[in-house]
């Protein structure tokens, strides 16, 4: 059999590995400065436990262990971390600021050019609600992508609270039923405007609610987009999340980050556990989102420990593709790290004797003590370097 890897899994050779390390160590340093502590979760989780927090939108790898327990390889880090925090930490530990760099695994159909293993670099801020916590996570996300060396990326943000509020009101007083509500949510999640418009044609639902649902998808821009949204849903008695979104935006503006950000109410398409702010980052030359995040205030309660939480993560491999597309591939990035693969001072063992080896080890150690990379080499009795 040929020595292949499974589809969607790949080896990381030294040049790429060094570039990965360089990016992640710079982001780690940034997150450390913000007071985020490292954390790790196991590779395998119990499926039934994770599903307590809601259905998973990605397809995890599943397996049975010898106890006949149904396990999954973690398809993301947010749910396992919520489980960990709920199970292991007590209320007095809050607020928690946690950071991670972890591989995640997702089943994908074949012939779709999709990796089934990738690396998420992310943070979770647990125990604090409110716009300043939201702004911290977004600002951190922007600074982390900056630290990676990305230029010209955009973070699109909005709040899912306004759509939920609007649909609740449509059910309560606009003649809509539960199945209509579910279908509109599903259409937003699928980014299917045509379907949203078709549902907004449903004559059973009050016309003002239908108009608001139809128009919400297209609301985007700077701060004025929040006003447009308020004008759209305010007269219907809705507007949950908009004050918080505006306060978050104001903070981002004051921090000088609003030019990297945009309000866009079409971004309500990621996981269904989000309860407020949601955002996604896009870069030119990258066809899909670099990463995403949001507020998920009900997830920890599902694991038996009620606490508000927000977080974000980017996919390391997607960011590296975007860096490559903008011409900032790994070579220059590794220059600052001191040593490329195989470079440094060579310390040679001339003769195959214990004394010569000891001498070489000692000489190399002396060089390393001064901060110079020293690599041991061996020569044959004829003087050829091995």
């Amino acid at each position, binding site marked *: 059999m040929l020595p292949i890897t499974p589809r969607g899994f790949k080896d990381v050779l030294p040049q790429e590995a060094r570039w990965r390390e360089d990016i992640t160590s710079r982001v780690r340093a940034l997150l450390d400065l913000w007071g985020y502590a490292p954390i790790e979760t196991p590779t395998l989780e119990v499926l039934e436990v994770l599903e307590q927090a809601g259905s998973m939108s990605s397809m995890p790898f599943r397996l049975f262990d010898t106890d006949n327990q149904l396990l999954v390889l973690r398809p993301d880090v947010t749910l396992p971390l919520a489980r960990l925090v709920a199970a292991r930490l007590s209320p007095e530990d809050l607020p928690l600021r946690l950071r991670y760099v972890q591989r995640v695994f997702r089943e994908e159909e074949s012939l*779709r*050019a999709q990796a089934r293993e990738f690396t998420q670099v992310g943070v979770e801020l647990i125990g604090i609600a409110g716009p300043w916590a939201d702004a911290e996570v977004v600002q951190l996300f922007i600074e982390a992508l900056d630290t990676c060396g990305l230029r010209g990326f*955009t973070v*699109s943000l909005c709040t899912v609270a306004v759509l939920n509020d609007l649909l609740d009101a449509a059910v309560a007083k606009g003649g809509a039923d539960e199945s209509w509500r579910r279908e509109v949510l599903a259409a937003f999640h*699928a*980014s*299917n*405007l*045509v*379907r949203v*418009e*078709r549902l907004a044609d449903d004559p059973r639902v009050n016309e003002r609610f239908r108009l608001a649902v139809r128009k919400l998808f*297209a609301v*985007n821009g700077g701060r004025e987009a929040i006003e447009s949204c308020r004008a759209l849903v305010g007269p219907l008695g809705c507007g949950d999340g908009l004050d918080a979104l505006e306060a978050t935006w104001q903070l981002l503006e004051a921090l000088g980050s609003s030019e990297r950000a*945009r309000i*866009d109410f*079409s*971004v309500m398409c990621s996981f269904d556990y989000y309860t407020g702010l949601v955002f*996604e980052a*896009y*870069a*030119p*030359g*990258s*066809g*899909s*989102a670099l990463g995403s995040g949001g507020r998920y205030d009900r997830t920890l309660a599902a694991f038996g420990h009620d606490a508000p939480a927000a977080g974000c993560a980017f996919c390391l491999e997607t960011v590296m593709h975007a860096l490559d597309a903008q011409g900032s591939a790994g070579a220059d990035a590794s220059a600052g790290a001191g040593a490329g693969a195989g470079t440094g001072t060579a310390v040679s063992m001339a003769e195959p004797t214990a004394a010569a080896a000891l001498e070489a080890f000692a000489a190399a150690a002396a060089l390393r003590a001064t901060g110079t990379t020293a690599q041991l080499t061996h020569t044959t009795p004829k003087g050829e370097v091995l």
Partner: protein
Amino acid sequence: MRPLKVAVPKGALFEESVARLAAAGLDVAGLADPGRQLTVSAEGVEYFIVRPTDAPIFVSYGGVDCGICGRDSLEEAALELVELVDLGFGSCRFVVAEPASACGVAEDSYRRLGVLRVATKYPRIASLYYDSIGVQVEIVKMHGNIELAPLCGMADRIVDITATGATLRENNLVIVDEVLSSTARFVGNSASVRTDPRVRELANCLAASAV
């Protein structure tokens, strides 16, 4: 600023797609007779002439910013993208058909054997449909002339696309159920929709001329 990349479907949807893009204000002169050319450059825009079933792939993976294709191709591809406008043209239906002479045979065989064999070019659409009505089927993916499969007894039924029903009639096949109806859609790459205002502007112009 780089040109906006637009996927234009060749085949049945081509002519009307070009007309709609023209009505939306794009320079489509180069698309009038592209010959064997697969890309056409015009003022501020670059067209990529693609197979309709491949349009969702070009859009989803960011090869182009946006494009036009039928709903059928979107359903079959099931890729992440933003479906922006129902352009209303190119309407066709997905139907289940069987030989006129074999009326009732498929039901009998389903009762005896507990499974139907269905030939189709659209395995995802066919299996979603049969899952939704709870009928157990074996789906065999084919690439063309699938009307032959029930005629030679290789399959009980077909799930296929039809605009007028003429091909089905000519081959003595009758429609036994409707699966879904399709029209042309304007779709955008999820990053382009959110970072390049030209995609939404084009969507708005196309929506205005679609009514």
